[in-house]
Structures are given as C-alpha cells and as structure tokens.
C-alpha cells in the first residue's frame, strides 16, 4: 500500500552540520561501498574507467558559494541524500506499492522486487534523492542503512548509517528526530536546524544545521602603532624617484 502512515512510532533520520562538513566526500564513498555490497541490487556504474563515466549514488556532496552583502564569500559543502520525509511525495505516486514508509521507524524504502522502474517517484522528489539504476532498471535510494542500524552481527558502535560512521569531521548525526530528548533533536533545537525547500511541503525528517556566523577581525578603534607605520616618504626621491619620473615619461 503506497498510502503514507498517519504517524510513525519513531522518525529516524540524519542531522547534517553544514558548519562542520569539509567536503571530503568520504560519506559518498562509504555509502556507495556499503550499499553496493548489501541491501538490494548493487549501485552500478556505466563506463567507469572510460571517457564518460556515470553511476548510481545515494548520497552526493554539492558545494555552494554564498556571497554576503559585506565581507568575503563563504564556501559551503552540502551533502544531500534522502530526507525520509513525513509527507513523502515519492511514496504516494508509486503505482505498484514498491515505495513505502515504515510505520516503526519512518524509513522510506523501495521493494525492488515490485519496482517497475517507471521513475515517477524520482520525478516527485524535489531533492534528487532517488536514482534509477541503469543496469538493474529499479529505483535506488538511501535506506538509512536499515541493514546496519539493527544488525546484531555488527559491533554496537557500527550500528549507524555508513555515512555517519565514516564522517571524519563529525558533520553527520543519526537518531530519532521524533523524540525531543534525543541527541539529534537537542542539536537541531540548539543550532536552528532547518528543512530544505519547506515550500514543497514534504516535511523532511533530516535536518540541516546552518553554518555558524564567521568571525570577523574587528577594526581597532585606536591603534597606538599606526602613526609609526604610516608611509615615510609621500614623494619618493633618489633612485626610486628618478625611476618613477622616467617611467611616467615613457
């Protein structure tokens, strides 16, 4: 059934800290690695060593330049994967029931055995979180590493999404965003975590923490040393003065 559940028992998701992300793409690589070898069909590549390589990825890191009204531009690295929306438009458009949102933890998944590869769910997603695998003809998307987070064969510290486990900067956090006392919810509250494209009314579970304001080196009001550092000669004389005059004449 591709209707969305009225409510979910938990809302598992990611909190991504745009202030901390260094844009190393380690999460992209670990996601590709884990999800090629585990849940569902592999994430294929086309012409990977040729002139025009492309492939399926569940997580991609963009980089944006933001130019404030005053001061230097900022460069912000921007990892993007499925936001596991509460009102996921990708789920309700699915004609086969292959796309669904789980009641127990809110994860949006694709049953690949029922997917006909029509691509409509990818059309419905504003975030570009779903990609049709060119080799297998089925829709691939972030599973929130559903095969890791409950996996008792893994050491406890590994029972989190591969991207979160891998991030060397600590820019990715995983937890239950429906629980106001969870670490991720606290983080969102403290740092003003935001939704992407709120006007699309998808109510994303994943939140993004905005970059903190940059330090600005304040201009000192009075500088005792300034008078001593002002240029000594306003009108250069000697050899430099002669060279300056000669160059003017040429």
């Amino acid at each position: 059934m591709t209707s969305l559940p009225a409510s979910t028992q938990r809302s598992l998701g990611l909190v991504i800290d745009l202030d901390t992300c260094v844009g190393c793409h380690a999460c992209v690589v670990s996601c590709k690695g884990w999800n090629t070898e585990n849940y569902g069909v592999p994430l294929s590549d086309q012409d990977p060593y040729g002139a025009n390589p492309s492939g399926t990825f569940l997580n991609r890191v963009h980089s944006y330049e933001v130019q404030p009204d005053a001061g230097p531009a900022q460069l912000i690295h921007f990892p993007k994967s499925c936001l596991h929306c509460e009102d996921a438009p990708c789920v309700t458009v699915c004609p086969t029931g292959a796309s669904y949102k789980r009641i127990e933890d809110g994860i949006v998944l694709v049953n690949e055995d029922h997917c006909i590869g029509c691509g409509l769910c990818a059309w419905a997603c504003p975030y570009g979180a779903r990609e049709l695998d060119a080799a297998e003809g089925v829709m691939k998307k972030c599973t929130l590493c559903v095969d890791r987070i409950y996996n008792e064969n893994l050491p406890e510290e590994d029972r989190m999404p591969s991207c979160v486990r891998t991030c060397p900067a600590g820019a990715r956090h995983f937890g239950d965003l429906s629980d106001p006392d969870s670490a991720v919810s606290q983080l969102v509250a403290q740092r003003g975590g935001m939704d992407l494209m709120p006007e699309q009314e998808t109510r994303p579970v994943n939140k993004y923490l905005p970059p903190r304001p940059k330090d600005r080196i304040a201009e000192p009001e009075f500088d005792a040393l300034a008078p001593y550092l002002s240029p000594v000669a306003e009108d250069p004389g000697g050899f430099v003065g002669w060279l300056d005059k000669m160059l003017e004449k040429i």
Partner: protein
Amino acid sequence: MHPAPSVIVFTTLSGLGFGLLFWLGTGVVVPTGWAGFGYFALAFGLSVGGLIASTFHLGHPERAWRAMTQWRSSWLSREGVCAVACLLAMGFYAAGLVLFDLRLTVLGFAGAVLAAGTVFTTSMIYAQLKTVPRWNTALTPVLFLSISLAGGAVLTGRFGLTNVLLLVAGVVQVVWWMRGDTALKQSGTTLASATGLGNIGAVRAFEPPHTGTNYLLREFVHVVGRRHALKLRTIALVAGYVLPVLLMLPGSLVLTALAALCHLLGVAASRWLFFAEAEHVVGLYYGKRVA
C-alpha cells in the same frame, strides 16, 4: 525534463485514441458493420499502441501488471485501471455495433466516461507534481482533455464539433504556455530555499557533486533553446489547431485524413515541448535554473 520518445508517443497517440473512443461511446458517430470496424480499429490501434509504447520506458515492463494495484493513492495506477476498464467496455460496445448492429447505449456512455477518465488520470500524473511548477496546475488536465477531445473529433470528421473544440484547445494551449513561462518563479522554490543558505547571502552553485553526468541530470535537467522553443510553439499551434480547421472545410475524406495527420504532428510538437520545457526543481541544486 527529458523528452522521452516513448512517453511522447504514448500521450499523443493514446490521447487521440481515447478522444475518438469518447465520441464513439457518446454516439456522436454510431458506425456499424465494416465502417464500425474501421472506426474502432483506428481508436483501439491508437490507444493500445500508445499504451504499449508507454511500457518501453519502464525498467521492468514484465511487472507492469503491478501498476494496477495502488489506485487508492497513485494517479499512475488509476490511469492503468481506467485504461483497461475503458478498453474492455468499449470492446463489448464495439462488438455489439460491428457484429450485431446493436447499440448498447449505457455501456457506450460508461466507456466514454472511462475514456475521458483515462486522459484525465494521465494528465493528473503530471499536474500533481509540485516539483515541476510548469505542470502543477489545474490547467494541465484541461489542456490534455481539450486536446484529446478535439483530436478525437477530427477523426470523427464532424466539422462543426471539431471547429469549436480545436479553437478551445488552441486557446487553452496558449494560456497554458503563458502561465508556464512564469511558473517556476511563482512557485517560490529557489536555490536559496533549496539550500536554506539564502539568509547568509546570494547562493551560487560552486561545484557539482561529480565531474561526470548522472541520472538526475539526464532525466530532469534537459534545457531547450528559447529560439527553438518559439519555433516549435508556432509549429504546434499552426499544425495542431489552425490547419486542421482549414483542411476539414471542404469535407473530403482525404483532406480530413490529412487534417488528422496535421493535428497529430502539432500535438506531438506540443507534447515534446511539454516535457522539454518543464523545469524540475532539482535542477536548482545543480545551478541549472535561473530562478
């Protein structure tokens, strides 16, 4: 959006086919015997041919039957159910007329409603998508229905009916284009809202995630040249809505057939533009939309 030939062929041909089925079902033309066979063969050929073409863009066409199951939530599923129900109803209606010279009026009307329903559900697949502001309007079903009914009318050869419907479809088409050209701007989705970084300053896409292309870019970030688009709009308008009226004026069978072909060409151009000009908001993340 990528203008996939299979989807353009599907919506163009089946739109025409279901339009003809609508007029056959409502009894605007009630052909019997061999004439009936000809009419229904044409209508079924177009609608079924279009439906078959639509399966070509599927990754797993062998599982297409599963698409009938989610009619409670999915417009694509409702389209499948409507199309099959319409073809069944009209199949029996056609058999009555062709084989037994018998008009099953109620069944015909039911088939006509299902034919219009199929075109409506097709249009809602596009109209429901908030991610494509150009499509996300009640005008999209109006456009699809008016084109389909006008196209079907051309095939019936009824001049008066066709005349009015082509005029209506042409006007709807122009209004739909005019609204569409500002739709992305009106939607309020920008790179600033997509990244949430707008309150710091002006956001610019600095570096894409990968140096190569990907599924998202291929499927959603098709950009059509503006000059090209204007030419195609003119072709669509003249061939699709103006020429057929003139060609049907003398009332000859050959010229009516030519009018139908001309209309088909125009609608195909319009449908190509429907996809090629549509801006999916995911393009914003790649800095590909000026919004």
